[in-house]
């Protein structure tokens, strides 16, 4: 089955690597993929998929608290069992990861189990339990991904200090948790634990959590999370973690001086770093990197001929769908179908309650870049479907350029992560507000809010009074 030469070899079977493998095989190439730990990578094992399965459970539990007003009474309060929840999550993960294995088989991709290391002549050495295997390849795609970055500080490797690799199989819901880091991963996990019954504190070093998110959207989310009892502390630099009275005590320097916070668990979620294990040889041979991340050109090729790189290894976006699209593009290039990776339209989904999703520029960035823009928002409270399902918090916000093009769009509210695709498609397909306006949006759906935001930006929304529209503008 396995061979000593391949058209394309791929290191790492995350959403970058396994998608590249499938695409390359579909292009007719003989493909090998090397994976040292788990099929599906971070995303399927300790990232997107387990987090969304657990968030689904968390949200279901959360929604039970308002079920009474629907006329459904729970005679006794629901009981949450972490072990069963973890079993559900494991089932979901298992199904998806074994799906990846099936896809490898179905596409005739040879899978090598072990640590892959590569040299500039594109010889791949696979090491597993002291045994090695070797093969050569015409092209190599590096998809080594990333791992949690754990800053070195006293106490950080102690007991009950977790990270996003190790927080998925807790025996029971933590009483309390301190989340160090208020980026997307930290915020999502904070929302999850809170809904499962944990008292959560978020410590963020910067002046804002979710710094890259549009300010207005971010502010509303912070308000909602605050109402729910999540304590968000910004400008707080974590210095050390010590044990005190059976709790973890996190010591910080804040703008108000030294402050400390105590909880049963600490979750380190400050950032992720590229996973360069197996790239040592290439580095020595001159692989170009930029602060640890592999540098590539528009075709996703590195400075070493025939060696491509994709996914979390190459940039800080840290998004699975970007890794996958890069996988498709790199595979196309590696199989002689020239293609360029385009980063103009990258949607950013955030799975809080309510969800957030955005694409393109924030309002601040758009104002800096363009002189003539229109910015408008439309509230979910004016959308029939949102009212009918009792989810009226949030809004859709669009930023429109002078040609009627979409410069950016931001949604905070139910189903935002699915809905954003309409705007992404409009941007990528070079459609203007006119085409969105002309498109009949079904009633009653949340998607109506996206058309209404466009109508609002055009100065004639239907479902908000003209004064409100004018004021908002």
């Amino acid at each position, binding site marked *: 089955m396995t061979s000593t030469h391949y058209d394309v070899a791929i290191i790492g079977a995350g959403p970058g690597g396994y998608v590249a493998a499938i695409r390359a095989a579909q292009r007719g190439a003989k493909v090998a993929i090397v994976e040292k730990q788990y099929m599906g990578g971070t995303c399927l094992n300790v990232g997107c998929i387990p987090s969304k399965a657990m968030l689904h459970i968390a949200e279901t539990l959360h929604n039970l608290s308002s079920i009474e007003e629907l006329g459904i009474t729970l005679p006794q309060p629901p009981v949450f069992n972490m072990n069963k929840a973890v079993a559900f999550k494991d089932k979901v993960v298992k199904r998806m990861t074994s799906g990846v294995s099936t896809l490898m088989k179905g596409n005739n991709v040879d899978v090598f189990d072990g640590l892959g290391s590569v040299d500039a002549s594109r010889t791949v050495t696979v090491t597993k339990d002291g045994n090695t295997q070797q093969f050569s390849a015409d092209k190599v795609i590096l998809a080594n991904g990333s791992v949690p970055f754990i800053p070195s500080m006293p106490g950080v490797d102690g007991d009950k200090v977790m990270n996003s690799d190790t927080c998925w199989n807790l025996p029971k819901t933590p009483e309390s948790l301190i989340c160090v880091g208020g980026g997307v991963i930290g915020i999502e996990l904070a929302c999850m634990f809170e809904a499962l019954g944990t008292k959560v504190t978020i410590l963020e070093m910067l002046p804002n959590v979710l710094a890259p998110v549009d300010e207005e959207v971010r502010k509303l989310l912070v308000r909602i999370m605050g109402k729910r009892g999540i304590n968000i502390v910004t400008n707080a630099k974590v210095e050390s973690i010590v044990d005190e009275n059976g709790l973890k005590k996190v010591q910080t320097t804040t703008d108000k001086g030294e402050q400390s916070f105590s909880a049963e668990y600490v979750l380190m979620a400050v950032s992720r770093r590229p996973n360069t294990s197996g790239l040592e040889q290439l580095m020595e041979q001159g692989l170009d990197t930029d602060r640890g991340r592999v540098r590539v050109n528009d075709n996703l090729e590195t400075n070493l001929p025939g060696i491509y790189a994709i996914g979390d290894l190459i940039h800080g976006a840290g998004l699975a769908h970007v890794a996958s699209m890069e996988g498709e593009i790199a595979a196309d290039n590696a199989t002689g179908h020239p293609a360029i990776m385009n980063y103009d339209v990258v949607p950013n989904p955030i799975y809080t309650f309510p969800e957030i999703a955005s694409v393109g520029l924030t309002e601040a960035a758009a104002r800096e870049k363009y002189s003539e823009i229109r910015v408008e928002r439309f509230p979910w409270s004016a959308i029939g479907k949102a009212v009918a399902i009792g989810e009226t918090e949030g809004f859709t916000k669009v930023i429109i350029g*002078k*040609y*009627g*093009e979409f410069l950016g769009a931001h949604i905070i509210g139910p189903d935002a992560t699915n809905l954003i695709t309409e705007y992404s498609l409009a941007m990528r*397909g*070079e459609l*203007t*507000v*006119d*085409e969105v306006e002309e498109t009949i949006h079904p009633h009653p759906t949340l998607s109506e809010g996206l058309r209404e935001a466009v109508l609002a930006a*055009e100065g004639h929304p239907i479902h908000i009074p003209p004064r409100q529209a004018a004021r908002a503008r």
Partner: protein
Amino acid sequence: TQRPPHPNRTQATPVARRMAREFNIDIATITGSGHAGRVRTEDVQQAIARLTAPKETITSNA
């Protein structure tokens, strides 16, 4: 709303472009009826109809 055509936007819809390509029609020769003058399939279909119509019609249109 009337607005200037976006300088970077392709001046025909993607379907219109594919259709024109099949009939070897240069998109630039077609007047667009879409927003900001974008050429739509309807416009290409009309151009095709003119091309495939009897000679007189073509000359009278030229």
